């Protein structure tokens, strides 16, 4: 007896070594543990009792019809212009997904840190995931009873896609998959997770129960063809807040001490986030005990958390730290994106232009066409023409709700809010999402670094004391040479008077330009640079000997440079 006990020692240790070795090989093949959702899909009692194996397919199809977000997209077309990345085959977004939004986050192969880093909290399949070609669901009670399987084991095959690996291997509708790649599977999600660790060309063994007998198949995996929905991980954990990374402009506007955290751009109605008291403009610093660095991190934390499990968020609001307890849930199925047709043609509208885009007050028609709640009032972006609007990511169809926190229900308030050109954080609605778009101050990038002002450095600003001997006048959106050139049709442009002989310029306030011809004559302006000009004004000025350079795009400084090098073309035929 005692003699035999001796051998237990080394045998135990060696068995442990063997177990560890298996684990060792296992560790590498699990990609990105943190990104997998672990919850099981909800199945309503009705579905469980009814012997309707295709209930899942129906529900999924229904969600697609409503424009649900879980649309799988096998590959995405490269080279969609204007730096846009459109990853979702989603017909409901009116103008594609611009602003370099990343919609598909559960995609580890995607480079991080693109542009504004806007992220929607949507979990999605890896586009390059191989597939079996099987529509799977959990085994319902009737089938389990018939095949004499213990409840909750196996995965039911609803449908086998034609020409798919599953069909080639011989799997048929009605089979119950018991094991996949030597691992017992009980939910479609487990199959999905096993597939996520494989690649096309791998051969996996699938053990099924067919009519009560066991059969095994060797399936050679292939990549899913485009547009096919493979067993996606459904209904991820949802908090209901749109979050964004913080850039320098936001930091200044919201008076934040630093940018270690993420900012809440919108809180959805009736969401867990709203229930917890989260508000637009809050900066989330911690999720549970974890310090947040960026949106991606928070996203994976939310997906990794369990619905119904309370999480403490540490937020910064108005310079004070608050702790909010939020209970993440599931996104209600009924609240999918409403179907949004393309924008109706503009009707009677009050137009304006700002930082290179044409805007109007959003009419009731526009609001309805964009699928926004009735009564939404804001400024609709009609056309995005030139920098900086194109650079910071505005798009046609965006509705501007607020600038720097001041609501902009009509053009008057919009003009008042947007006139301050020292950087702005613009709250817009695009599709059904709220976004913050940062407009950097003139001469600065979004990162807060000053642009090289180049030729403009030699010009110095002088005070408007007495008549200035200006030869050139420029309409600009702001009171300096870095402001874009605008037209006289723009609401209240600044007039910059440039004296090229002694490299100086002076700025005239928009309010002092009531009588433009007299002002120009008083300052002996012989040339006027603008982005556009109305016919009567042009004729009046031309008759007084002012040469008009219209259609100029760029900053006032650039315009001066062009003028100095005789590259501006005068308006003719007046």
């Amino acid at each position, binding site marked *: 007896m005692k003699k035999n006990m001796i051998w237990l020692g*080394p045998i135990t240790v060696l068995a442990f070594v063997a177990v560890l*070795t298996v684990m060792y090989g296992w560790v590498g093949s699990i990609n990105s543990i943190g990104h997998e959702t672990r919850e099981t899909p909800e199945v309503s009692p009705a579905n469980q009792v009814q012997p309707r194996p295709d209930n899942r397919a129906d529900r999924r199809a229904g969600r697609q019809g409503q424009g649900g977000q879980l649309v799988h997209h096998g590959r995405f077309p490269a080279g969609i212009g204007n730096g846009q990345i459109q990853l979702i085959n989603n017909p409901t977004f009116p103008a594609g997904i611009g602003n370099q939004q990343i919609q598909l986050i559960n995609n580890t192969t995607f480079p991080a840190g693109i542009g504004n880093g806007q992220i929607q909290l949507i979990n999605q399949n890896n586009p390059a995931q191989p597939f079996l070609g099987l529509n799977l669901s959990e085994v319902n009670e009737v089938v389990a009873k018939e095949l004499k399987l213990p409840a909750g084991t196996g995965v039911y095959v609803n449908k086998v896609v034609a020409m798919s690996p599953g069909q080639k291997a011989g799997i048929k509708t009605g089979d119950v998959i018991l094991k996949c790649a030597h691992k017992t599977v009980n939910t479609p999600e487990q199959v999905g997770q096993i597939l996520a660790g494989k690649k096309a060309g791998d051969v996996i063994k699938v053990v099924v129960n067919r009519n009560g007998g066991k059969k095994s198949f060797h399936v050679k995996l292939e990549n899913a063809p485009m547009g096919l929905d493979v067993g996606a991980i459904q209904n991820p954990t949802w908090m209901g807040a749109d979050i964004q990374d913080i850039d320098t402009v936001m930091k200044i506007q919201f008076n934040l001490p630093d940018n270690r955290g993420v900012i809440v751009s919108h809180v959805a109605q009736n969401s867990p986030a709203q229930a917890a008291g989260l508000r637009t403009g809050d900066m989330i610093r911690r999720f549970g005990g974890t310090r947040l660095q960026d949106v991606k991190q928070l996203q994976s934390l939310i997906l990794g958390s369990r619905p119904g499990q309370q999480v403490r968020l540490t937020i910064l609001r108005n310079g004070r730290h608050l702790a909010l307890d939020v209970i993440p849930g599931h996104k209600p199925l009924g609240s999918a994106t409403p179907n949004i047709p393309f924008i109706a043609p503009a009707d009677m509208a009050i137009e304006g232009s700002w930082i290179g885009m044409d805007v109007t007050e959003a009419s009731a028609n526009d609001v309805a066409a964009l699928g926004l709640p009735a009564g939404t009032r804001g400024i609709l972006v009609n056309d995005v023409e030139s920098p900086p609007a194109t650079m910071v990511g505005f798009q046609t169809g965006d509705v501007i709700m607020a600038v720097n926190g001041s609501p902009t229900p009509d053009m008057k308030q919009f003009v008042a809010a947007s006139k301050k050109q020292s950087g702005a954080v613009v709250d817009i609605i695009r599709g059904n999402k709220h976004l913050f778009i940062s407009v950097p101050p003139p001469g600065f990038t979004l990162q807060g670094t000053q642009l090289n002002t180049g030729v403009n450095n030699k010009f110095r600003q002088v005070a408007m004391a007495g008549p200035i001997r200006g030869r050139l006048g420029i309409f600009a959106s702001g009171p300096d040479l870095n402001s874009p050139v605008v037209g006289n049709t723009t609401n209240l442009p600044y007039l910059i008077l440039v004296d090229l002989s002694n490299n100086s310029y002076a700025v005239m306030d928009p309010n002092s330009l009531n009588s433009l011809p007299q002002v120009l004559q008083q300052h002996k302006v012989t040339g006027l640079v603008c982005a556009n000009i109305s016919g009567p004004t042009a004729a009046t000025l031309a008759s007084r000997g002012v040469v008009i350079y219209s259609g100029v795009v760029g900053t006032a400084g650039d315009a001066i440079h062009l003028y100095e090098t005789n590259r501006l073309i005068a308006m003719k035929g007046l």
Partner: protein
Amino acid sequence: MKYAACEKCARSVGMVNVVGNISMILIKGYMGVVGGSKGLIADAIHSCADLLATVVMIIGLKISGREKDDDYPYGYGKAEYLVAIVIYLFLFVIALYILYDGAMAIIEGRQVVPCMSAAWGAIFSIAINELMFRQSVCAGTQINSPSMVAKAWESRSDVLSSIAVLIGIIGAKMGFHFMDPLAAIAVGIIIIKICIEMVKDATLNLMDRMPEEEDVMEQVRGALARVKDIAGIKDIHAREVGPSLEFEVWLNVQEHITVSHGERIKREAKKAIKKVMEKESFVRVRLFPVEVVL
């Protein structure tokens, strides 16, 4: 000895090592699997190798303790070496697999992203191994046992391998995903080194190689020099059998002495050798009569 407790402390070294290694295997294995670190799992296997060394030694003691019987008149001392060879060949294969899988993880660019719990496992291992090292060195010095000090330095090498693993985990956390498999490869190399040394030792002992320590022979000769009536040492053979040493000594004695005198010389020689030997020794003495011209 500095303190009275040193003796007790030295006796506990073996037990502390076994308990420490078992707890480290469990913790590193668990943390490695849960934290997703290849390096830490490899380090747990490394600790298994250390533990096995101790276990093999204990088995050797037990088996060698069996009485000689008719079938095995020389005893069971060599069973230990056979066990060691089998176990370490097995570990060798495991270590090769660690190297292969680690290398493939790097080549295929698999994302091994350990979490911080793995780092805590490595830190724990570093701390425990360092403490064990310090205890062994201190106790070994105090009771003047070079073998205990030598074993202590093995614990030190475990500390180094755990540090490599910690660096690998932190590197992987910083985004260098190849660092963790790289640490695993480093640990695998250490395991292979252990295996080769152990298998080599066991094989050499099976082949009845003379004990490696040079001073063993010197000590035996010194001891015999003090025994009376020995005319000279013709030859000494020695081999390690399990935990003990076996000597065969041919002594030259004067040809005219009586048998009883010869037997007395044998007894005294045996006693003298056993006295100077640290390990348990079996001595066989043969007398060889020579004509001594004085």
